């Protein structure tokens, strides 16, 4: 089912893009529904898509031998899923599974890259948004490293 630029504009990631850019992105986007428990990708797989989550929840996970599967982070409505495609070797660093039913816009990254190369202003706008996503996740990861909720003596920098 085709996607309208105005629909994309309602997503936090695409909000603020020029109407022409929204239309060009919408032309390569598809609307998908993912059932709970469906795995979108596995660690090490080729990264060829990105998703703009509209509803539901997706867990980024990692299998650790002897510790089963650990959830690295969860993503929800308004979030963008998929950053590994941006840089070589374009393989997924983590896996992704729908924890509940998920609605999203899916965009093939070859087409996204093509649009960016043919329209540098669109490329700049997308790069800013993707960098914002990466920075927000980096900052969140740094906060979690601080282990703020640990008992004072166990926290990083805590006293005895």
């Amino acid at each position, binding site marked *: 089912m085709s996607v309208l630029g105005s629909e994309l504009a309602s997503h*936090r990631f695409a909000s603020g893009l020029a109407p022409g850019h929204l239309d060009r992105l919408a032309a390569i986007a598809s609307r998908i529904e993912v059932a709970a428990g469906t795995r979108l990708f596995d660690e090490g797989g080729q990264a060829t898509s990105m998703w703009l989550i509209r509803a539901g*929840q997706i*867990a980024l*996970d990692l299998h650790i031998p002897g*510790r*089963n*599967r*650990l*959830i*690295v*982070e*969860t993503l*929800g*409505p*308004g*979030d963008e899923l998929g950053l590994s495609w941006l840089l070589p070797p374009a393989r997924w660093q983590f896996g992704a599974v729908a*924890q*509940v039913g998920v609605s999203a816009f899916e965009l093939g990254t070859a087409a996204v890259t093509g649009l960016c190369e043919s329209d540098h202003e669109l490329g700049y706008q997308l790069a800013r948004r993707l960098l914002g996503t990466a920075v*927000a996740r980096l900052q*969140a990861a740094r*906060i*979690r490293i*601080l*282990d*703020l*909720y*640990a*008992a*004072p*003596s166990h926290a990083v920098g805590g006293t005895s």
Partner: protein
Amino acid sequence: MIDCRYPVRYRVSSRLEETHDTVTLTLEPAEDPIAPCRPGQFMMLYSFGVGEIPISVSGAPGQPALTHTIRSVGAVSAALCAAQPGHVIGVRGPFGTSWDHADAAGRDLLLVAGGIGLAPLRPALLAALAQPGRYRRIIVLAGARSPAELVFASEYGQWRERGASVDITVDKADASWPGHVGVVTQLIGRAQLDPHLTTALMCGPEVMMRITGRELTAAGLPAARVWISLERNMQCGIAECGHCQLGPLLLCRDGPVVNFEVAEPLLAVREL
């Protein structure tokens, strides 16, 4: 008139283990009770022979019994956490400022908690839930270290049934955890807040409140409508000893609930 300088004896009537290191105690007066407390205020709880520490009230307002949720992190808190039904504890208070969210009527009331910071927010939440229709939405965003370290976990379902939106996130979880994994600030972006129609109350580690406060104000929420609960070394409770000084504030009197507009510049001063 009870003199706040002297403890009033209360007897532990119930003890609930919230997590491996946190308990909720209900205390009934063993003599003339202290004055009623407001959500956000704290008491000085005295474990006789061990010492006294400040602990926020965590129960619904207007009850004769006191409810406190305590995490065992030192000698006094460990003694309080170990107190069994029938044990007598000294109580002084109530002290300090309370959550000020009268302006939230008709708007969204956002409560952001980190770890045991949910305890001081619980009385405000219960008061809000008892007034259906007073707020446009009641939104609870809470973070914890792991699912096993969530406090009041058995109540989230009731809060949702009574109309609150409750989103919980943890720092670490395995695949059996159906909730969010990440920091509580990440939930803010997904909550679709209208900054012009939101009043926020926050309690948790100071770094978490600093970051969350900045996130909320960056999203357009006026700092004057963000309230945080701060803690320093409260001792006397009556603004005489000065141990809880934070710049121009004595937090046992001017806090623990402080407006973010006032608090933010002070939180950035390393010497404080």
